[in-house]
């Protein structure tokens, strides 16, 4: 398989996983969140997570940042479509950032490659 085909296949698989995640991902808290709920008395170690359980975050003296697409979504009004846009955008961005970083590193290593052939 050549590089181009490998990249196309890899990206298609990654995007398919991301789109499936919008519809099939579990809504249960992850391991860290579950542990926080236990510590805060909202969940038992082996029991299910109550629907109303919510992590109480003490932001006093802590940094606070509002991400533009929290929870991999564009907000409730956009529904699953917003989730797809967010995850597809994030997946492609991760791909492009790593690709760009390595291209920069390669050019720093071999500056001759950045010059056009004469």
């Amino acid at each position, binding site marked *: *398989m050549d590089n181009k085909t*490998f*990249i196309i*296949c*890899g990206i298609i*698989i*990654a*995007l398919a*996983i*991301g789109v499936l*995640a919008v519809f*099939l*991902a579990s809504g*249960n*808290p*992850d*391991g*860290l969140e*579950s*542990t*926080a709920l*236990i*510590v805060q008395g909202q*969940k038992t*170690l082996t*029991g*299910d*997570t109550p629907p109303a359980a919510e992590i109480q*975050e*003490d*932001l006093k003296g*802590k*940094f*606070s*940042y*509002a*991400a*533009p*697409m*929290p*929870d*991999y979504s564009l907000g409730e009004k956009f529904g699953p479509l917003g989730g797809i846009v*967010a*995850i597809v955008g*994030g*997946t*492609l*961005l*991760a*791909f*492009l*950032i*790593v*690709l760009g970083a*390595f*291209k920069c*590193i*390669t050019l*720093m*290593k071999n500056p001759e490659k950045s010059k056009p052939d004469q």
Partner: protein
Amino acid sequence: MHIPDAFIPIPQGIVYWIIALVFITLALRWAKNEMSEEKIPLIAVLAAGIFALQSFNLPVSMGTSGHLVGGALAAIVLGSPFAAVFILTLVLIVQGVLFGDGGITTMGANIINMGVIGGFVGFYTFKGLINVTKNINISAFSAAWLACFIPALAAAVEMFFAGTFPLREGLIAMGLYHALIGFIEGIVTVIVIHLILRARPDIVDLGALPAKGVNG
């Protein structure tokens, strides 16, 4: 396992960032010295795949879910723990800045847990086991399981220092949940390694050789 800003005081977050920056610098040096242009597609596709897989939470019982972390996968396939540091750092930046998955001040801790600890535990466990068992599936599964479990314990200790979790409860809960989540990590890691091996065996370095970018 993405620690949000509210879970760690800013001064401790700065300490974790400084430690993480040391490993990020070493990872950049690894990328500069060891990466060839032919491996760039693999690294970029791995980053995209790890991002997508981290957004896919699967239920692991007890009202908890989990997803692939990917540190072991990156380190095993690319033959160096610094590959995990490099890829996970960039993925965590995208997740934290755009999606609020993991904090900004806690990003250093997240890079240490998932990239550094996950990458080093995954790589050296795989390297040790593949030499003994000669079996990719057993070695990769075990390495990935440990690369999920050990960082979770590290996160519990960090939460203890931050005053967020009591040590005992944190270790028990984080350990139990991530012991289960580790099965997802192991299975997905083995599947992805086989997919990549089938597509491009020529660009995979299964880490049986000395780790690239690591002196000694």
